[in-house]
């Protein structure tokens, strides 16, 4: 892993790996319809490709059961399919997306239980990072990569470890992760990801102006970000989720050997097997997980 600046291609050539959230359960209940969303996004891809001749766009679909590469602008196999009503970029992408959705439906068997299911962000992040690594190793001349995460589904706490690992490896390779969150609440994972890797996180207020947001904020290449002012979030939600139940917690126990986070006291760490010392016997130990409960009620 060499540092990115030594592999400079040109200042503002960028490779944007876009992680597109295709969770059908989210899109069917979102105020922005999927077709509108696709419109904005496709126009945005076109815009990126016109900014510089050498720019590259790679799209990875984050599905409910699987993730897959959907489009790569540098591949030569982009045949113009269908009618000539839209550029081949869109046509290819839509074609592949449809196939992906079919495959994804086949893979899943269960119904989601009540709440909106989350998409496999960790999987698509890992795939993006692998692609970028391949680009790094392709030689000295390559564009500056960054990851753009268009996510609407809520965070899946069970993916915490995997996402954090991906974020740290992105940090190490100096790949910024930008994130645009389209859902109702805040996504702690995406905020953390952008914060740690030096990317931009934004939650658009008006979803029908999504294209404008994308172009203004996320279209800027890495070199220009040195002298452009992009919106900064005022605070970042840094809560972790525990390893045993995958609940988001504020206070917990940490294994001193492998730094795994637990929400309650354990005799033995489940990750590395270290045995912990004798705990003080406490009958009315206040629960550390729920911060809303007051500690001494007696």
């Amino acid at each position, binding site marked *: 892993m060499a540092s990115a600046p030594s592999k400079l291609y040109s200042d503002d050539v960028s490779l944007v790996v876009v992680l597109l959230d295709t969770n059908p359960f989210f899109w069917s209940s979102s105020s922005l319809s999927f077709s509108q969303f696709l419109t904005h996004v496709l126009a945005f891809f076109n815009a990126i490709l016109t900014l510089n001749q050498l720019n590259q766009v790679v799209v990875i679909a984050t599905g409910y059961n699987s993730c897959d590469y959907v489009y790569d602008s540098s591949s030569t196999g982009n045949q113009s399919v269908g009618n000539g009503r839209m550029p081949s970029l869109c046509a290819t992408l839509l074609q592949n997306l449809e196939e992906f959705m079919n495959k994804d439906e086949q893979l899943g068997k269960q119904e989601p239980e009540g709440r909106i299911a989350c998409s496999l962000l960790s999987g698509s992040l890992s795939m993006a990072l692998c692609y970028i690594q391949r680009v790094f190793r392709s030689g000295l001349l390559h564009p500056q990569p960054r990851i753009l995460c268009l996510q609407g589904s809520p965070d899946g706490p069970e993916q915490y470890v995997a996402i954090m690992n991906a974020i740290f490896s992105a940090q190490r390779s100096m790949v910024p992760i930008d994130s645009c969150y389209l859902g109702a609440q805040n996504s702690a994972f995406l905020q953390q990801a952008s914060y740690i890797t030096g990317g931009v996180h934004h939650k658009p*207020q008006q979803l029908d102006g999504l294209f404008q947001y994308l172009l203004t904020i996320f279209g800027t290449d890495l070199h220009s970000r040195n002298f452009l002012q992009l919106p900064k979030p*005022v605070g970042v939600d840094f809560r972790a989720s525990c390893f045993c139940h995958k609940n988001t917690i504020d206070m917990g126990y940490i294994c001193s050997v492998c730094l795994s986070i637990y929400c309650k006291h354990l005799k033995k760490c489940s990750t590395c097997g270290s045995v912990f010392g004798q705990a003080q016997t406490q009958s009315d130990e206040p629960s550390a997980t729920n911060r809303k409960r007051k500690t001494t009620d007696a």
Partner: protein
Amino acid sequence: MSGAAQVTKRAKYKISVKDPGTPGALRMNDQKLMFMPDNRNSGAKLVVEFKSIQGHKYTKEGSNKPPLINLANAQGGSYIFEFDSYADLHVCRDFVSKVLEKSKETPNAALEKSAVKLPDEQLSEEEMQLRIKLLQENSELQKLHRQFVGGNILTEAEFWAARKKLLDIDPSKKSKQRVGFKSAMISDIRPATDGRTNKVTFSLTPEIILQIFAEKPAVHRAFLNFVPNKMTEMEFWTKYCRAEYLSRTKNYHAVVAEAAEDEELAVFLKEDDILANEVRKKIRRVDPTLDMEADEGDDYTHLPDHGIFRDGTKESNELQSEHYRRTLLQDLNRHAAVVLEGRTIDVEREDSTRALAEALARSKRGNEGADNNANEERLDRTPRVAEIEDLQAPHCLPLAPLSIKDAREYFDSQQANTLKASRDSQASMKCSLSRQEAYGSVRDAISEIKDMGLSDPIVNPEVALKVYSGLTHNISSIKYHLGKNPRETVLDRLPSATKEKLLYHWMSIQELLKHFWSSYPITTPYLYSKVNRLKDALSNIYPQLEVYFWPEFTAFA
């Protein structure tokens, strides 16, 4: 309090100095003084609280004036009492001054009282004084102390338990910093020559003597041996000064001649053998694992042909004469070494030169003992450190190997967990469609686009404008709120009174939390009551903060 709690003396009460005065009895106790005239009907009865007395004046013994004491009160009036004798005056004066002193300390009396109220601890007077002094010096600490110990939230012992480091400093043990030796070589004494009488006068101060002893251990040893057995101090120093004088002259042969005559003088002129020994020891102590060839040849101070001799000549004579010469370099180096070693004894403390010499000898012996131990340790360590890696057995350190379980196991087991409801997922919109329907709708959307193409315009211009202006406003307002100066914090932008209040609250919250968390786990009823007290104190702070800061915060936001 030592002394009488009450004093009664015969005195005359005067309104002014010239007043003849009404005879009566003056009684004083801790709180007030009372004057009862002999003649009950004269109406000059007086009861004055000591609280209202500001100061007191009295006439000096030995002056021709009668013994008077003048007590000034807050309103500017004064009470004058004349005593029968000066002895009475002194007694009363002492009593009054004691009472006034005590009353002056009332702000600290509260501190003292609370510090004294320790049923559990036995504190020595010294420790109490230290605590009071610390509180007086540090106003933050005093505020905290008053708030918590005074407010009965924490006891004295608990308050100081967190600050053991402050109390550990025993002021009497703190050593004063001593002035070191001068860099200039004052032991290089130059005499005052008197041309007329051909006398040469040397002046030696204890400081110079101490430096001489430190730099020339042979002279030190000679002093301890010769004085007072063989010669008096005066004689010793005379001989020494003569030796110095001789060695400074260029008349080398005179030096040899005198040395041959006078044994004791020779001691001063000879090479300092103690020094030579020390240097040799130091060389031996050099760690051989250092890549240096350290051997006796490095004792360059005693090699021939080295350095310029004191009297400026450069030739080297026979071996025997080497002993009587010191080089400038030798002296300078020795002086520098002594200055850097530092001073271990105070000149002022020793009364006589003899005591000085003994004290120096003692301190040297102490150092030597430590050196020997260090030396032995070092010799032990050397074979261990200088390992030849090829010949060593492989190191098997007693560590338990870290066993991280197979990661696949972990991720597979999460399939079950994905179905568990997360407590923090605040999904307001529930998916009402079934799986098939959901997928179907997405597919429909894709087909729609494929047929229709991208919409035109992609974004409504008004919406775009709104978005754009919203973004720019957002960016500029963040800049406005967080400030251009990255080092400027939110605190600095508040008015200073608010900032101080905030910091004060922060400090007290920290203190309370520290005690709160340190009392877990709750194993005794005492801890339980303590925790309750702390909890009440903590919950009292919230409304205070809201009352003070809510208006300011709303304006800020």
